[in-house]
């Protein structure tokens, strides 16, 4: 039964990671704060020493939110130089599963955390943050301190989300991290996929392939449709520069470049993992809350 043992390839599965800054000495810090962002598809942990990013982890969310929170936090701790959970002074939970982070001191909504985290990651010139997550799309306007001025959110439909992209990667058997690059390897963008619903887009893409589209052309048709869909949704908030894209889709150049073209503006880039914005924002709130609690 060789066949049964052979594991089905999971094209949607993106690389999970953990990291710590080897040049930082966390033991010298006054406040160690952490943020845990338990999203519907991915979970992140960020550990900060006196407000500076020290360690992080990014994993897929499992079936159980508390366990996912514990796993991602443990993984971030593993990257550190001997830090333990009890060394962290204050932990803030955010994201879809924010109230289910068993070791957190407080839960804060992901909108506030994303804006705060984006300003840390990209600088105080950020005015519009678009978070393209696994199961929702958020467009947030903020001030130079990362305070939310207005936002809009779509969480009803998979079109335009990371989860939808995973489904398409699986369908076309293209590893998810290659989708964006390959979608740009076409001479000219084909007409966008016309179905809104991801379930229907799947059938439409199969018929495109049958019509003679290459896989890259089919990916281009889907990425164009998704960029356009996101564009029409975020038009409702004034997209003001500086503009940044966070979340898993920010790692997909096929969406990012097409969206930038539609908007007529470029997004800022950073070396920090784009998916960390929520967790970083949560950790920054954690630091402030801890300092406030000490003053009382």
């Amino acid at each position, binding site marked *: 039964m060789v066949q049964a043992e052979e594991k089905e390839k999971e094209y949607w599965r993106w690389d999970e990671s953990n990291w710590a800054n080897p040049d930082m000495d966390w033991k010298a810090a006054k406040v160690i704060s952490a943020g845990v962002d338990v999203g*519907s598809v991915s979970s992140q942990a960020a550990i900060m020493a006196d407000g500076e990013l020290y360690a992080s982890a990014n994993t897929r969310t499992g*079936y159980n939110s508390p366990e996912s929170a514990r796993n991602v936090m443990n993984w971030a701790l593993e990257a550190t130089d001997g830090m333990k959970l009890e060394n962290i002074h204050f932990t803030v939970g955010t994201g879809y599963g924010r109230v289910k982070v068993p070791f957190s001191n407080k839960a804060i909504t992901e909108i506030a955390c994303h804006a705060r985290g984006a300003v840390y990651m990209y600088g105080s010139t950020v005015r519009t943050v678009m978070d393209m997550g696994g*199961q929702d799309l958020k467009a947030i306007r903020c001030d130079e301190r990362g305070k939310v001025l207005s936002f809009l959110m779509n969480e*009803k*439909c*998979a079109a335009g989300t990371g*989860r*939808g992209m995973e*489904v398409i990667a699986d369908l076309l058997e293209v590893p998810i991290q290659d989708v964006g690059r390959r979608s740009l390897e076409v001479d000219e963008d084909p007409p966008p996929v016309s179905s*809104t*619903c*991801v*379930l*229907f887009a799947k*059938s439409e893409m*199969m*018929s495109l392939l*049958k019509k003679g589209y290459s896989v890259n052309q089919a990916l281009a048709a889907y990425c164009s449709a998704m960029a356009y869909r996101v564009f029409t949704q975020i038009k409702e908030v004034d997209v003001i520069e500086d503009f940044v894209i966070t979340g898993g889709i920010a790692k997909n150049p096929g969406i990012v470049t097409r969206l930038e073209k539609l908007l007529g503006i470029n997004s800022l880039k950073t070396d920090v993992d784009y998916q960390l914005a929520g967790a970083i924002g949560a950790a920054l709130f954690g630091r402030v809350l801890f300092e406030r609690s000490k003053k009382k």
Partner: protein
Amino acid sequence: MITAGMDVGAKTVKVVILKDGQIIGKGMATAGLEADGATQSAWERALEEAGISRDELRKIFATGSRREEVSGFDESVSEVVADARAMSVVNPEIRTVLDVGAEEGRAIRMDAKGKVLEFAVNEKCAAGAGAFIEAMARAMQVSMDEFGAMSLQSTKSIPINAQCAIFAESEVVSLVHDETDRPDICKAINDAISDRLTSMARRVRVEPKVALIGGAAQGLGLQNSLKNDLGIDELFVPDDPEFLGAYGAAIIAAESQT
């Protein structure tokens, strides 16, 4: 006079041949990426059952979302008009028709003559369409037959929060992993699609009696959930509920000749 109606749907093609008001032939075939082949098979079956050749047909009317992909018909009618016309012949007491197509859900309020008074269509999204049930059954790795049988064994109500089929799939997979009883998951899926259909039905204002048609209509679990959500004791499901659109088109084709 012999006329025919063909319904080129997202997933299946149906043909009904009508002679002086009586159905003399029916044919159905599953369309894949191309609708042509299935259309030909559906025609062959219907003509064989009717025992006639195609040139004996006076008029052919077509309906269905993919009718533009095929040729060989005289005129087009909308799915909503065809459904209502056929229903007024099958059961004149019906005032509200819910049609669950493979990729489209419809709610129609009509008068006794089959005139459409109000309708709502959901064509952009799989929630409320047959494709939703199929995707969920696939996520559970059960066949459609097993799905139908299992959903009747449950009396529990487990909410599926997502409307979106893609998100609901993840919820169903989580329920499977949580070792939720499979019949309870099947019922939850029927409840979810029933919820979508009910809100569409409310948009056209539900007037009894209510009929359910389309490929998913024979699902007893879905029928139960709908009766419950709509607060009705009786839900009419005609024989061959997937043929109503083609039947309606054939009737309208005949009426165009008088």
